[in-house]
């Protein structure tokens, strides 16, 4: 089981330590960790499981914060990683973001949360909704109150009812004047287009996100018109397995508030809504780049926040790139970003320019991969459609809302 959790800042400073068991971990381990990550660079930062001379370390890196957990004994590594991810998610939600200052400013809340989330190295309460009832998230009201009166307690003095009910993710006695459920399909499209311009891989990873505010203990069912397109699914603990196995119906008692009901994968899609065509020609020490972007859109929806990003190969000394639409920026680490925004109707955006190669190099022999970002509101590119949402048990009416959005996931175009 986990022995200790450290939170490290961007500069390697230990912001917080939480010892979990009797076998204390000295914080010098963080020093070792940081020395290693400086000497070994990025590949070390991306190694989730590290065997240090004294401990096994698990690291999860989120927005500049390194979550480091230590153990000395055998335990499922995914359990540790998943838990650290959960901690990061919860903190993100509590503090409205993750960065060094937020953690330091609210270190008491972080301590209290960690104490509730893990006991003796074993996860205790990790459901966000329940935690929020035990430890109040910081908000404007409590801040002001604490300034004015000097007293504020973020520790609730009663045990959330949910911890003892048969649905541990929900408190039974919620009351709302207006009952409403919003269902969002949030999809990410992963695609790989190879050097020949052929679509090698195109699939969608989606999540069904639900925001429910319903009085009492509601029992919801959600069904899709075309569940057969789903290749693989994963569910929130509240989803009952049996109805899904037999009829592909989601039957569940929802947690209160926002949660991720289900995630799914749809494979082998035939087309992408956007095309990116890079061309690289090199001769005599210079290289000419031309990237065309266009919409292949038959959904009738606009494509927003389009970006094309790529890493200039290290053999390129300088680059001069311009575009007919949007802005091009090149960072010091040779990351080039072309912000297009919304694709205009009248013209096809393109970026072009020349790049100077290292002296002595005639031609370019390595080619960058272009990562594409976009966002489409109101459409689920997987084609998944919600059939209906019903409320059992509780008799009164409620408002339902459905939305869909698709973003680019790992959308790559090789050149």
């Amino acid at each position: 089981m986990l022995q200790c959790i450290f939170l490290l800042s961007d500069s390697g400073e230990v912001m917080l330590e939480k010892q979990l068991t009797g076998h204390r971990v000295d914080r010098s381990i963080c020093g070792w960790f940081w020395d290693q990550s400086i000497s070994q660079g990025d590949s070390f930062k991306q190694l989730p499981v590290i065997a240090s001379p004294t401990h096994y370390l698990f690291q999860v890196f989120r927005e500049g914060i390194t979550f480091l957990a230590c153990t000395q004994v055998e335990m499922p590594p995914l359990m540790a990683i998943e838990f650290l991810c959960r901690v990061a998610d919860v903190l993100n939600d509590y503090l409205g973001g993750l960065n060094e200052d937020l953690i330091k400013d609210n270190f008491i809340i972080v301590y209290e949360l960690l104490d509730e989330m893990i006991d003796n190295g074993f996860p205790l309460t990790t459901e966000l909704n329940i935690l929020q009832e035990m430890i109040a998230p910081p908000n404007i009201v409590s801040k002001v109150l604490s300034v004015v009166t000097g007293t504020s307690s973020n520790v609730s003095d009663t045990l959330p009812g949910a911890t003892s009910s048969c649905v541990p993710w929900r408190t039974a006695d919620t009351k709302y004047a207006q009952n409403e459920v919003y269902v969002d399909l949030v999809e990410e499209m992963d695609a790989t287009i190879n050097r020949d311009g052929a679509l090698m891989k195109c699939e969608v990873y989606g999540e069904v996100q639900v925001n429910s505010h319903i009085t009492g203990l509601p029992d919801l069912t959600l069904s899709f018109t075309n569940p057969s397109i789903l290749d693989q699914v994963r569910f929130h603990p509240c989803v009952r397995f049996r109805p899904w196995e037999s009829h592909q119906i989601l039957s569940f008692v929802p947690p209160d508030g926002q949660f991720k009901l289900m995630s799914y994968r749809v494979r082998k899609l035939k087309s992408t809504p956007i095309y990116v065509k890079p061309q690289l020609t090199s001769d005599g020490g210079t290289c000419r780049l031309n990237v065309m972007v266009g919409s292949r859109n038959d959904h009738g929806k606009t494509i927003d926040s389009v970006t094309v990003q790529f890493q200039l190969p290290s053999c390129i000394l300088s680059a001069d790139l311009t575009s007919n639409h949007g802005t091009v920026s090149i960072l010091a680490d040779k990351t080039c970003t072309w912000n297009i925004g919304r694709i205009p109707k009248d013209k096809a955006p393109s970026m072009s320019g020349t790049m100077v190669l290292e002296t002595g190099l005639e031609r370019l022999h390595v080619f960058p991969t272009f990562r594409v970002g976009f966002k489409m509101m109101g459409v689920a590119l997987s084609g998944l459609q919600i059939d209906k949402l019903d409320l059992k048990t509780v008799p009164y009416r409620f408002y339902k809302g459905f939305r869909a959005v698709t973003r680019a996931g790992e959308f790559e175009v090789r050149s």
Partner: protein
Amino acid sequence: MFPQFGATAESLSKASTAVFRIGTDAHLYDDPDDVNIAPLLESKFDSEKTEALKRLLALIAQGFDVSNFFPQVVKNVASQSLEVKKLVYLYLLHYAEKRPNEALLSINCFQKDLGDTNPLVRAWALRAMAGIRLHVIAPLVLVAVGKCARDPSVYVRKCAANALPKLHDLRMEEHTSAIEEIVGMLLNDNSPGVVGAAASAFASVCPNNFSLIGRNYKKLCEILPDVEEWGQIILIGILLRYVIASYGLVKESIMFSLYGKDDNLEVDEQDFILKEDTGYTSEKTLSELANMILQCYIEGPDEYLSRSSSANMVPPKLDVSQFTSCSNDIVKILLKCTSPLLWSNNSAVVLAAAGVHWIMASKGDLKRIVKPLLFLMRSSYASRYVVLCNIQVFVKAMPSLFAPHYEDFFVCSSDSYQIKALKLEILSSVAVESSVSFILKEFQDYIRDPDRKFAADTVAAIGLCAQKLPKMATTCVEGLLTLIRQEYFCGEIRSMDGEDGVLIQAIISIKSIIKLDPPSYEKVIIQLVRSLDAIKIPSARAMIIWLVGEYCSLGEIIPRMVSTVLKYLARCFTSEALETKLQILNTTAKVLICNTGEDISTLQKVWSYVIELAECDMNYDVRDRSRFLKKLFSCNVDSQNHVEEQNSESQKRDQSYVFAECIFGRQTTAVTVPTEPINDRFYLPGSLSQLVFHAAPGYEPLPKPCSLPYIDFDQNDGTANSDSDEDGDPSTSGSVDEGSASDYSSEQSVTASSEADGSDEIDSGNEGNNNVDPLIQISDTGNVSEEQNGGVHSRFGDLMSTKSLESWLDEPAKSSKENETNQSRARRSSARITIGNIRSRIKPKYYTLLDPANGNGLKVNYSFSTETSSVSSHLVSLEVFFENCSSEAMSDIVLIDESSNRSSDPSTNQTPSTTENTMKIHTENPAMVSMEDIPSLEPGQTENRTLLVRFHHHLLPLKLALFCNDTKFPVKLKPDIGYFVKPLPISIEAFRDKESHLPGMFEYIRSCTFTDHLVELNKGSNSLTEDKFLVICEALALKMMSNANLSLVSVDMPVASNLDDASGLCLRFSSEILSNSMPCLITVTVEGKCSDPLTVSVKVNCEETVFGLNFLNRVVNFLAEPSVTRS
């Protein structure tokens, strides 16, 4: 302008961030000690206390040691504010181990909080109390955990389960069974949340106590999908181990089929897997690998190390009986309940469920795990790596499983290098003929990747694919050659790192492909040789030169161009790098040996030129090599000059020629062919060890199949919830051992007792046989109504002192019966029970102090006596029996407390008159009131003495020295906590009153199984059925009284509608602790059928908690001991 209003932009932005930080604890973190913390802690306002505590926590967070505030902080544990409490707990747990003495101050508060009405307070108190981890309070924590395990709140019960590993960490051997009992109880809980936490406790407390699982197996399986995610991970592993330990592996699973090959268990299976895996060339290595994996799963690291070498490894002997079928219900349930978990949101749960299927599911069902595993790769980056590491092992053992999903292993640019490398390895293992062209196409893209290390790995993967699928080899070689041409095209000018690696790797790959079928790649070699001039990287050149030497006699063209190549090499010899130079020397030698052609003279010229150059080289390796070669080839070269003139000389030449042949001849290919034995270690899927490639501490391989004796636990399902602890469960081998051990000791005591009062025994035995003389007799007084509704309330001894009770009990049974009935009728008109001569039947237990074998024939036994000392309340009285078993007389036998005497005056020890001395000792260090010595003991003579001893601790033995014939024997006196009390004769009302004053924390309950009465019942099977209760009463009372110094207060008879149901029988005993006269009350309640082993729950109420607990443990232990069979 006023200067003070000239705010700069910088200060404005500072101000704006400050606005966001208002109301947070930012200032506390930034300057935690800018105020004096100590007075704040003493403040009477919660808000100030909170602030002080927050400052302390900030200091802890920043790594400062603030343990010096411990005493002040501990005081605040009593605060009513929950926030203060929480913060104090946080601080306390951080430092408790450092300041154990001060931490003890908080215990009372926790105890109080444990009785709070708010479950949150109870849970926090328990967590904090268990988290303090002090040995001193461990028994208290155990009691608290035991209580909380029965708490109405699920959350509290969950925290109780989590507290068990904390207790276990303290390594309290004496409480192990109590802890395991609680684990068993919590595993049987109805709430899934508790079961999950209990599973985790089980895994860390008693991972091999499968009887706890067996009892609840089906229930645990059914509850599994509802258990919270973290518990699921652990519970899945436990269930898997249990099934393997008790039922073995599954015949249809991949484990078995891999196995079949060695044991010829099932030929069909073997064929099946062969068929399935066609398309993989290195089939043999594959199956060997898979076999290896299985072996690693089952075998512990010790065995692995002890195995001399992997070459002669003997697979663990498993026979058919150690395999079960997939259709076995137990296996079916496990698979059925774990398969929906493949849809879990938690990656660790999915992987754990997949691991179970991997080991237990039939090969057909194995497909089920593929998609969930692949889907996991889309979760966080960190888990992607872990999942891929596991998939890699699955793929190695069974490539066909993932073969159709090769597209999922295509690399993205956002993958880290480790992930890319793993994906490449998986891709090259899953490639089959139908997919290889797509995979190679993808590989072509990767070669252009800016990450050159990755590109080099890709080239290596291409080589692997070509070796696996010979049909693709030509295409691969073509591609690689083109790559090499491109590479050397720009190779001259570039000094970029990684680029060399690609080229070298390309040549390595080509080399390994050529090795498969050299004749068909003649042209490839020629092309490589032609490019030699352009390739500048030394190791790449060396490899090509090696190829020339290796294949110099291959085909038609190569032998003809060899001399030209050698000339070229000789020309550039001086400018080469070390490794190339060495390789040129080798190749020249090889060519020389193989060549029989016409241009031999040219070759010899080149040879001598190169040797000459090498001999003058700067590097001694090159010089050595050249000298060695010169010597080896001197005769060879000569012999070819003067063609075999003298036979006598040729023998010597032949010898060196043979050497040269051996070293440089064509045998090399033959030597390198045998595949290397796979020497990797594999660990269970989903384990940490699997990722770090060594067994992490605490790693446990799967248990040996069928290592657990088969028990049909289904029968126990019904009785499982009766809290019977595992002592009573015959399944655990541990408890069986215990049983036999105690059998042994009790046998000893039987022989001893039969020696002591054997005649009595026989008498009572006869009586028992003849006229059924029950020790307890109900003499109905006619008040039938009370007996009907209230049960029989017997209260005897309530008005009498112990002494009189004893004397009364000692009276002959028959006469006492009438007397007693009269007496009791006179006192109260209700049902009466009298217990006959129970005192006389008490057989004290004898312990050996000195064995005749060790004591030169002197045998010393001792037993605890019920007499209490009049000298001091701290003294326990013992009867010591001396017997001379030798043939010679003994003299001056005395038993003394050595530790105290040593300090006083050792010379007086052996003198016969030690009375004065002992008195002195008694006052100084009253460990023991010395016994009167025995001046002489004739052979066969026995003597007994009464000894008054003061034990320092009620569990630790006292070291004494026994002197006999001036020889010293160190002996140990083991205390029996049952005699650290003396009978406290009180009435039932007084008992009840006292009991009501000792609730909650002072009450401890444990249960055990009691079987003594069975012997009696069987013996008197012809007797009246009504007597069953009495027999039980008698047996229980006897057992209690003969093992502890108690007084019987009352007996409650069960309200029995069924004559065979003893449930409700209740005996009360009272006693007081010798040292401090605190009362210690014991209530024994019986449950179960008369003719079966009874479940007896023992309750102890005692103010002194530690003593009470130990006392309870002792009572439970002796009650559970099997009865002494009477001769």
